[in-house]
């Protein structure tokens, strides 16, 4: 099963690379989906550069969410930061309850069109999974392990870095993976406010009633999601195996 997944992802990667590097070679495949001699392959910009912009905004927004969410998670699991738990929870929950479209609508008048509002929407949307996972990762570190660390004279900072974070890492990484995947899809709406990204392809398809464009945008996003999910899951497994897990890392 494991190998099937790995091989599948390998094929998807190859297919994706060929497609975004030489999209025109797929023209015959998409021509049946077009009418009235419309272009079968997206022709209003380079797919490669759109894909890179798309990834860039997702990665930067998720990285920013991760820094804030993990930081908050650490803060509210300290004895001195416990009182900030309700506040942090509501903050993070707001980010998730507000639909990204609404955030865009509010952000545009404030920061203008382009990457900025998209970044804000993705950043807010990505906080919750990472925060909740950080919280559960840190709180499920066994009490006796922490007590042992204290009993051997580890300072609070060392306990955090040498014991708590390593033990919570797989769970935190899972949160980051979930946010990244959600944001890969959500980032397509950024194109409605003129952020560069794969949403442009989909929107162009919708505007000109071009099924081929629609499909191309959707497929590239879907393949990216599958690949990123596979890569981040592998990192998670590696982190978990460092914890002495039974699933020792095999080339997957």
């Amino acid at each position, binding site marked *: 099963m494991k190998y099937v997944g790995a091989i599948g992802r390998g094929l998807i990667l190859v297919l994706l690379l060929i497609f975004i590097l030489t999209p025109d070679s797929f023209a015959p495949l998409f021509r049946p989906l077009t009418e009235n001699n419309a272009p079968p392959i997206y022709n209003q910009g380079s797919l490669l550069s759109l894909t890179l912009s798309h990834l860039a905004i997702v990665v930067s927004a998720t990285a920013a969410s991760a820094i804030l969410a993990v930081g908050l998670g650490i803060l509210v699991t300290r004895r001195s930061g416990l009182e900030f738990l309700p506040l942090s929870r509501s903050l993070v929950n707001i980010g998730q309850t507000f639909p990204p479209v609404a955030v865009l609508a509010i952000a545009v008048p404030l920061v203008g069109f382009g990457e900025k509002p998209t970044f804000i929407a993705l950043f807010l949307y990505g906080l919750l999974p990472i925060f909740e996972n950080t919280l559960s990762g840190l709180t499920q570190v066994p009490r*006796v*392990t922490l007590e*042992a*660390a204290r*009993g*051997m004279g*580890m300072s609070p900072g060392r306990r955090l870095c040498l014991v708590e974070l390593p033990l919570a890492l797989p769970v935190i990484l899972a949160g980051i993976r979930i946010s990244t995947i959600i944001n890969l899809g959500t980032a397509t709406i950024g194109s409605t406010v003129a952020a560069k990204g794969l949403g442009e392809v989909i929107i162009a398809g919708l505007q000109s009633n071009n099924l081929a464009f629609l499909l191309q945008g959707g497929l590239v996003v879907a393949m990216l999601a599958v690949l990123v999910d596979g890569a981040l899951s592998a990192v998670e497994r590696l982190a978990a195996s460092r914890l*002495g897990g039974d699933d020792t890392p095999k080339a997957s």
Partner: protein
Amino acid sequence: MIAIEHLTKRIGETTLVDDVSMVVDTGTITVVVGTSGAGKSTLLRMINRLITPTSGRVLIDGQDTMDIPEDRLRHRIGYVIQGNGLFPHRTVAGNIATVPRLLGWDQKRIRRRVEELLDLFQLDPAEFANKFPRHLSGGQQQRVGVARALAAEPRLLLMDEPFGALDPIIRGKAQADLIAIQRRFGTTIVLVTHDMEEAFHLGDRIAVMNDAQLLQYDTPAQLLTRPAAGFVERLVGSSDRPFRLLSLAKVRDAMEPGDAPGEPIDPDVNLRDALSRLIWAGADRLPVAHGNDTATAHISVSGILSHGRPPQ
């Protein structure tokens, strides 16, 4: 020497440890016994300041522990936590190296020390150094926990029910190992247990706690022959009290002059085991001798039995 002076811990309305004073001599094993919830762990954890006392103080070799920064204090005191508390994300070697690393020992010295300890606890370094705790049996985990506590060569070792989860055979072995290590390094040990058998087996002195209070702090023999009225008396006063008393004394304490027929008994065997030998051999008396030496003394059933009751 550890001097515990009027140590008290209160949380809200409840008193977990109530005005406990006792002195633990250097190089001895003190066992703290008592029922669950008696305050044993709390007392132990006030020694390395994992819990801050409400009042009273602890002196180690005359120095108030409150005057030592808490992390430095704990680097000097080995601590075996109830339920072993090994770091699941670190290998056996990594676990044992914890305190030496905190102290900044160099790699070579740490590696040497880890191997030395693994050898000491009969865990082959080649096989065990790189295993993770969850791949060890309970007995092996427990040994690694003790090895970790001993890593930085502490003069004082605190152990909270270190053998609680072990089966009787492994437990006996672990206790024997502990005694051997204690003899070899002269470590001062304070050990908590709720097993009376273990207390009598290991303790040079036994502290009996109940309901937050220290009821009696004495040698095992004193505890058996002169128990404080009430809880302690009930605790030690079970039907096997004479046998416990016998296992505290050696053949050399009860032997009488003159030879006797039969297989000789070593003078360092305890009286309980000697009595078993006599019963099994169907003899009234057996010669006492080291190995193949000729016997000049003997041990008798009546001589042994007189040690199984308080001196008149």
